[in-house]
């Protein structure tokens, strides 16, 4: 199989992302784990750009890096969760590693059974933001789940404010 530019780019980004994810779950200090999580998010966004869906890459960066990561950092600042510094009781994580490896092995075997296409059906989309927008808010599309999602966000906003308020 000839390695074209797209494939090399994919391999590099994928390797960096997986390495960052591994480093994240094995990190000692939780602040490093959050920074590595941001690296994973950026890697996934780069993959989306490679796929041609730049809007989803932008959303990924905006929501995850700009929202979730900042939340996580503020949460550990408030709780001073330097959990990595506390001595942990002798707790074997071998079971978890076996389960994770097993899941990975099973999924990969399943994936390789199916003859997936190796070319995308449609070449890089020109300007499908309009199509995405229409699918999202048109009546024949997903307008009702869209409104339900906004309701969900509202409820979560109220709930989080109430749960975390100062007593």
């Amino acid at each position, binding site marked *: 199989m000839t390695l074209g530019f797209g494939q090399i780019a994919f391999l590099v980004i994928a390797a960096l992302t997986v390495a960052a994810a591994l480093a994240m779950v094995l990190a000692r200090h939780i602040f490093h784990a959050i920074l590595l999580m941001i690296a994973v998010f950026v890697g996934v966004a780069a993959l989306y750009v490679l796929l041609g869906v730049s809007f989803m890459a932008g959303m990924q960066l905006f*929501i995850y890096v700009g929202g979730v990561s900042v939340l996580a950092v503020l949460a550990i600042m408030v709780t001073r969760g330097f959990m990595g510094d506390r001595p942990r009781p002798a707790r074997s994580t071998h079971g978890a590693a076996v389960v994770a490896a097993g899941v990975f092995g099973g999924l*990969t075997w399943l994936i390789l059974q199916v003859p997936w296409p190796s070319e995308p059906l*449609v070449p890089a989309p020109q300007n499908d933001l309009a199509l995405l927008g229409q699918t999202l808010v048109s009546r024949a599309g997903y307008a009702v789940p869209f409104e339900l999602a906004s309701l969900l966000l509202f409820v979560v906003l109220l709930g989080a404010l109430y749960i975390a308020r100062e007593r």
Partner: protein
Amino acid sequence: MVPLSWYLILAAALFSIGLYGLLARRNLVMLLMSLELLLNAVNINLIAFSRYLEEGQVVGRVFALFVYVIAAAETALGLAIMIAVWRTRQTVAVDEIDTLKG
């Protein structure tokens, strides 16, 4: 071009790494972040499928957008609960929060 199976295997790898993080770590924030890894893996799958197998419609990406919304909402709420737990119990290690244990 990049075969679809590569994207799926990458997503599977991220999923299992997230699963390991979920099972093996004690800190609540680590658990929430491993959950984010799982959801990211799912999103990669959805978007890869949408690009490679869909023609003329973008349902996969709409689904991925909803997953983003739910992931952000659940992380926010999880961290709020964690702050509340920290205020009462002064710990965020999941094996130390066991008052309901019979």
